[in-house]
């Protein structure tokens, strides 16, 4: 790499791997400055530099970061750099958490690492996410996650910047993404830039796969589903990504049960499919346009559906466009997207007294339209951004009691027929100012206007770099959220109705983190560590009132009843990872955290509060073809309300009695601790010009029974007669031992 360049000029360059192949999407930045750009599809970049000596940092996931000294003279002229990045096999082959992409307080999870983790049937980005610190999956039969003690509806999920509503399949069991179509997920928990607001806990940004110069194709076959993905560059700087997946386990099961004469009309196993299509074009003038389409579809199998009935089906549709322009010192980004989430079922009922039949249609239709325009100006040590945006939402909710009980499974009103609308206009501005070589200050605010009211969310972040691998970040955020679901849904639920609020939920977030992320050559082992402490004050949270009962001080939002309550979360996390040059890797993370909410002047643990959480991930190459992986998770049990006293209800003959429990302090006891170990093995080989991978996994390899809730009658029976009790009195249980197989081919 050349060590000398000139001043006041446009610096151009290209980033390749050691084989000379271009690396698109690599971040090229002044290490202690605000100047940053990214390489395009052919690996080239350009940027404006100032006179003097500075460090140039080049990063890309899957490669070791480069840091080189650049000397810029007073005379201006252009120069061309060639940066060669060394592949970081360790990062792609073992670690769950790769280093950040240069943005502080951001965790990145690549799909390459998701493929390493023992999956539930098939690779799932949300399930691997639960191995990250501060990410909790309180109910592992549901893919919903909790970030830093927040509720499961308090984080945003976006796909290439477009907001998604409910990207899960199989009644929330797995994520609705074919991992082959994704590049990475980025989690922002402790600090959100000013352009993002609308969720209290943070956001999960999913980025689709960017094709290189060569096309890539992948077929995957698992016990659950089959999928195909094509990433194809086309002439004229056009690229296309198409990915589809469909399940067949539901059809096999339904066929088997019909042939065996089984009866029943409940879900057998919901079948699912998803399709993602993205097409983009880049112009040499700096413009880049991209269109994205994404569709998910789930449908329940039912055995004895009558002619007028329609089994439950649900899913989401998204269409969006991104338009970007990047000049040497400024850039523009416009985004527009529209999405629809649906869940519906039609059932036939008979009214006994009238001896007549009636059809009941239950339907959730939620339409979102989102747009934003962002301008960014990059100066010497200052980076300024500002923008405007809007969100328009219309939610139509109509359901009956059985639909609410069986498919929504949360504290929704038992019956509802409403249409609600919401329009939010927003604007934001923020800046990053680098002070000297060690300090960076970022500050700004997000302003939202809804129903003639203004809500301002200030943001502040400080970064101090002691030495090169060691940095400290301090962040303060205020966040608003203008919607809520009716409490945490039970497993087996479908798309939850989102209720629109006119008065937002509010949280103040503070966090301090320290990162030790040294770079190391491929021939070296590497140890990385990070630690963080954080606290959150929920000044105005929603507590869904079961059944939508109203009372004094409650909000009515689209037919649901919400109490406004304060809450708080505080915690700390420690993560360390270690990787050897041969590809063996281990990661450990611990999170200690308390999440509570104040109800009737008493701070109670939230239903998902888990004070201690420990996770480990390891990946070991046994040979050039075989690799074994293991993931283990342990955490405290969640809070439950215990039985204080058992009394009885006499029946009329005075000699028969029913049990009635008198419950103790709300959420004053806990379920037993949760523990799960997942094991996996992969065998890789090359044949017919393609890379083949055979994988096998066992989820919950120790066959541990992890209860989600007590059946108190069973529990107390177990206390006295443990010999007749295998599940410890658990009424609902987490994942059982589940083996699975899969094969994939890439070429």
């Amino acid at each position, binding site marked *: 790499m050349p060590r000398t360049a000139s001043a006041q000029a446009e610096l151009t360059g290209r980033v390749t791997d050691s084989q000379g192949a271009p690396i698109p999407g690599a971040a090229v930045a002044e290490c202690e400055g605000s100047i940053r750009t990214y390489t395009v599809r052919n690996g080239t970049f350009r940027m404006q530099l100032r006179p003097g000596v500075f460090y140039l940092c080049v990063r890309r996931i899957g490669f070791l970061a480069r840091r080189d000294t650049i000397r810029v003279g007073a005379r201006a002229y252009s120069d061309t750099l060639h940066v060669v990045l060394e592949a970081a096999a360790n990062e792609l082959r073992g670690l769950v958490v790769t280093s950040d992409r240069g943005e502080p307080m951001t965790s990145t999870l690549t799909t390459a690492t998701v493929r390493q983790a023992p999956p539930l049937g098939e690779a799932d980005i949300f399930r691997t996410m639960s191995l990250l610190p501060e990410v909790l999956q309180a109910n592992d039969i549901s893919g919903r996650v909790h970030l830093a003690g927040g509720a499961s509806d308090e984080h945003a999920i976006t796909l290439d910047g477009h907001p998604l509503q409910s990207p899960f399949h199989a009644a929330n069991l797995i994520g609705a993404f074919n991992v082959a179509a994704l590049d990475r997920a980025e989690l922002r928990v402790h600090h959100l830039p000013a352009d993002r607001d609308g969720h209290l806990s943070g956001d999960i940004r999913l980025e689709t796969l960017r094709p290189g110069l060569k096309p890539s194709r992948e077929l995957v076959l698992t016990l659950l589903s089959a999928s195909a993905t094509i990433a194809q560059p086309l002439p004229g700087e056009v690229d296309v990504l198409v990915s589809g997946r469909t399940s067949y386990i539901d059809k096999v099961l339904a066929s088997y049960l019909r042939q065996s004469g089984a009866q029943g*009309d409940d879900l057998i196993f919901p079948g699912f499919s998803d399709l993602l299509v993205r097409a983009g074009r880049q112009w040499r003038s700096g413009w880049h346009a991209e269109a994205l389409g994404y569709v998910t579809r789930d449908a329940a199998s039912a055995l004895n559906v009558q002619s007028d009935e329609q089994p439950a089906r649900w899913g989401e549709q998204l269409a969006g466009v991104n338009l970007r322009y990047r000049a040497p010192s400024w850039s523009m980004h416009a985004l527009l997207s529209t999405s629809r989430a649906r869940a519906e079922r039609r059932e036939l009922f008979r009214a006994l007294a009238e001896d007549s039949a009636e059809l009941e249609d239950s339907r959730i239709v939620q339409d979102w339209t989102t747009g934003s325009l962002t301008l960014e100006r990059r100066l010497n040590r200052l980076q300024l951004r500002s923008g405007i945006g809007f969100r328009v939402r219309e939610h139509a909710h109509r359901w009956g009691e059985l639909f609410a009980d069986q498919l929504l499974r949360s504290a929704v009103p038992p019956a509802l027929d409403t249409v609600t609308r919401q329009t939010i206009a927003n604007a934001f501005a923020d800046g990053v100012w680098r002070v000297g070589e060690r300090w960076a200050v970022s500050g700004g605010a997000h302003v939202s206007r809804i129903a003639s009211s203004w809500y301002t969310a200030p943001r502040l972040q400080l970064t101090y770099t002691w030495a090169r691998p060691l940095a400290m970040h301090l962040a303060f955020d205020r966040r608003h959220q203008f919607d809520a679901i009716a409490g945490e849904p039970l497993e087996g639920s479908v798309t939850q109705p989102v209720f629109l609020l006119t008065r937002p939920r509010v949280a103040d977030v503070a966090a301090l983190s320290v990162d030790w992320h040294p770079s*190391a050559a491929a021939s070296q082992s590497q140890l990385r560590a990070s630690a963080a402490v954080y606290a959150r004050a929920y000044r105005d949270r929603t507590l869904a009132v079961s059944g939508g009962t109203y009372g004094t001080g409650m909000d009515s939002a689209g037919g649901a009843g919400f109490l406004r309550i304060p809450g708080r979360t505080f915690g700390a996390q420690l993560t360390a990872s270690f990787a050897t040059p041969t590809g063996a890797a281990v990661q450990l993370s611990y999170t200690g955290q308390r999440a509570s909410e104040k109800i009737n002047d008493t701070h109670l643990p939230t239903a998902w509060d888990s004070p201690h959480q420990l996770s480990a991930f390891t990946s070991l190459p046994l040979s050039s073809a075989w690799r074994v992986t293991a993931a283990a998770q342990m955490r405290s049990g969640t809070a439950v309300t215990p039985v204080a006293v058992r009394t009885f209800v006499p029946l009329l003959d005075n000699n028969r009695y029913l049990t009635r429990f008198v419950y103790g302090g709300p959420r004053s006891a806990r379920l037993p601790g949760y523990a799960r170990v997942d094991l996996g093995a992969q065998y890789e080989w090359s044949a017919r010009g393609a890379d083949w991978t055979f994988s096998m996994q066992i989820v919950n390899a120790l066959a541990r029974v992890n209860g989600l809730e007590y059946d108190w009658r069973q529990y107390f029976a177990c206390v006295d007669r443990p010999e007749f009790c295998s599940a410890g009195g658990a009424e609902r249980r987490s994942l059982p031992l589940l083996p699975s197989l899969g094969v994939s081919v890439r070429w």
Partner: protein
Amino acid sequence: MVGVRLSRLRVSQGATLALGILSAFTLLSSCDAAKTLNPRTEEPILLLVLSDSASNPLQPQLTALLANSGRPSRLEYRLAQTFRMTRERDGAEFAWRTSPPPPRPGGAFFPSTGNYVLDERSSAAGLGREALRVGETYALEVVSEGRRIIGSARIPMNPTLKLESDGVVHRVVWQRIPGVERFLVFGPGLDAFVPITDTFVVLPRQPGTTSTVLVFALDSSYGQYLRDSTVFSAGLQGAYGVFGAVSASSIDVAAAGKMSAGALQTLPAGRSPEVTSSNRTRTTGARPE
């Protein structure tokens, strides 16, 4: 730099470390982090529902249960130093006596029977069950291991049952009764302890064999205790449980030859929450509401 110092580590060491961590997880996961939730309390429980002999002629004795809350998995009977029930009108005392239940090793999950009995006949020791009358009020005082339990109950008037028919719908109706909000209705195929607030039941449309419909009028204490699972004490103070009263009447009606569950239903149209929730079922019949 840390990375340089660790560069000599190889796969075997990484594997050892990983296996060590997994072993630790395995050991830890076998431990149950939660302490057993098995509280034991000494709170008394008293269960007594009064009825006159006519309301339940097959069971001449009346029983009461006095117990310790104890552990949620084991019942513990409790003794009273005083078990006194009097008629409010004249203070006449009833002859309640202890009736120790048969001992069971380790106790029982459910009570097998009450441990206090009121015999049918009056005696020198006091009044018997035959002295209980509808419309009368009775006071209870129990002293047990230093705890004093008091209560009061009035036996409601009997419902007067009538059979009505418009040629299409046949139903049994009765009157509203002071102090009674809920009723229990028993008939062929309907033996659920779900109180209703209606004062009628609809019979099958095609009369066939004769059967009996039995209607109990529940006083407010027992009605509330039976229906509301969040009520732990009704009609008494100083203990969990209930001190209530019922009265009953029956009528013979012509019913369908083949009666099944749900054949005898209360009328719909949302006259009460209980009725509204029970007047619909799915045609496929697999899911009771």
